[in-house]
């Protein structure tokens, strides 16, 4: 079980709690935040893009080449930052309890 502190696209803040072991994308997608996660984790759509507060960086897995490519591909349409992630590639764990996530703009 972990709590996620979310900033939505309007700047509103909420906390949602979710089970460990599932992708962050699914928790956000199911929380009525207008985050689509269309491709289901295949890294082919870029619709689960989030910014994760940099202080959490060392607890996150490194970006894979495919995640990097998808983030670069959406870079023409939305702002991609050093702390940009595809939330489908971040698995919720107890270690991420309290993680601070901002939903990125829609592509």
């Amino acid at each position, binding site marked *: 079980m972990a709590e996620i502190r979310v900033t939505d696209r309007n700047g509103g803040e909420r906390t949602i709690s979710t089970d460990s072991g599932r992708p962050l994308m699914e928790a956000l997608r199911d929380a009525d935040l207008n985050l689509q996660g269309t*491709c289901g984790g*295949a890294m*082919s*759509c870029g619709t689960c893009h989030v910014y994760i507060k940099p202080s959490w960086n060392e607890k996150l897995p490194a970006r894979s080449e*495919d995640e990097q490519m998808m983030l*670069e*591909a*959406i870079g023409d*349409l939305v702002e991609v930052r050093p702390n940009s992630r595809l939330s489908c590639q971040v698995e919720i764990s107890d270690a991420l309890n309290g993680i601070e996530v901002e939903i990125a703009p829609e*592509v």
Partner: protein
Amino acid sequence: MTSNPTPINLKMLLESQTLKRAPFPVPVGWYFIDYSENLKAGELRNISVFDQEWVLFRSESGDKVGVTDPYCPHLGAHIGHGGKVCGDNVRCPFHHWEYDTDGMCKAIPYAKVMPPITKKQAILRTLPTVEKYGMIWSWFHPLCEAPHFELPYIPEIEDKTGYTGSRRGSWSANTCIQEIAENGVDVAHLKFLHNAPGIPPVSASYNENQMRLDIGNGYIVGDMYGPGLNVMRFNQKDPVTGKTITATMISYSVPVTHDTTQMNMSFRHVDYPEGSPELAFTKKQIDHMIGAAEGEESAGFESVDFIVWNNKRYRPNPLLCDGDGPIFPFRNWFKRFYVDADLSKI
């Protein structure tokens, strides 16, 4: 009191119960798809070869031919039912995703961002396809490897002048290519099935993807380039003119499934003048290759081989005797064309 009988070798007697007609996967190689003239610019149709369906299409410009897996990588629509050729690409009917002849996704009309994999590699399986000899040829490899060899130059069908012959044939065989090709090294059957006057000497040599077969000290010289192409030259002295005349059988068989084959052949020869004895002899040679030529006792493949091919089972442990041809070296060579198969059983 009787003595104990000799134990029976039951394997010898019972093995046939577990034999399969063709226990092989589709072999790797270049295969004939169709004659170039049969596919017009902008045309698209479904074909069945290599144990599955494929979509065959020609670009609107006419110069590119594609052979693709039917099922769109997006949501699985069958591109060959309602799909369309658009420029150099084939377009899926469902959402108009487009693919080129290499299977690269070239357009998704509504996506703001192309999925990154579309820039890295093909997302739709296609077969490497070329046009040569006035035909469309595709390379089949079950794990999508690039071609291991190139199709050879065949003067009889590629040179602009000097050769002629429009005779072609196509036959369905209810077995696989290995079984059909094995008859080349099985010279004993030439006497007994084909009624040849004797068992001719044979030599077979193997060099990577090629096999050279010499039957009767140069009477038939065959070059096989993988399972899908066999060029056999029949060299025979014409008793009338005393000249040695060569007629060429270009054979290009296609695995329709792993155990059925479409055998296709073109017959070519030197462009002798109309009415010449050389031309008459050449035509008789070609009749002889296919069936029974007039005035001959022996029989070509059409009349006798199919009854055996269509009904036999493959014996991995055949009982061979002296006088049989070099069957095992041929089988060992042919194994190189099977990928992902349990070679111990074949």
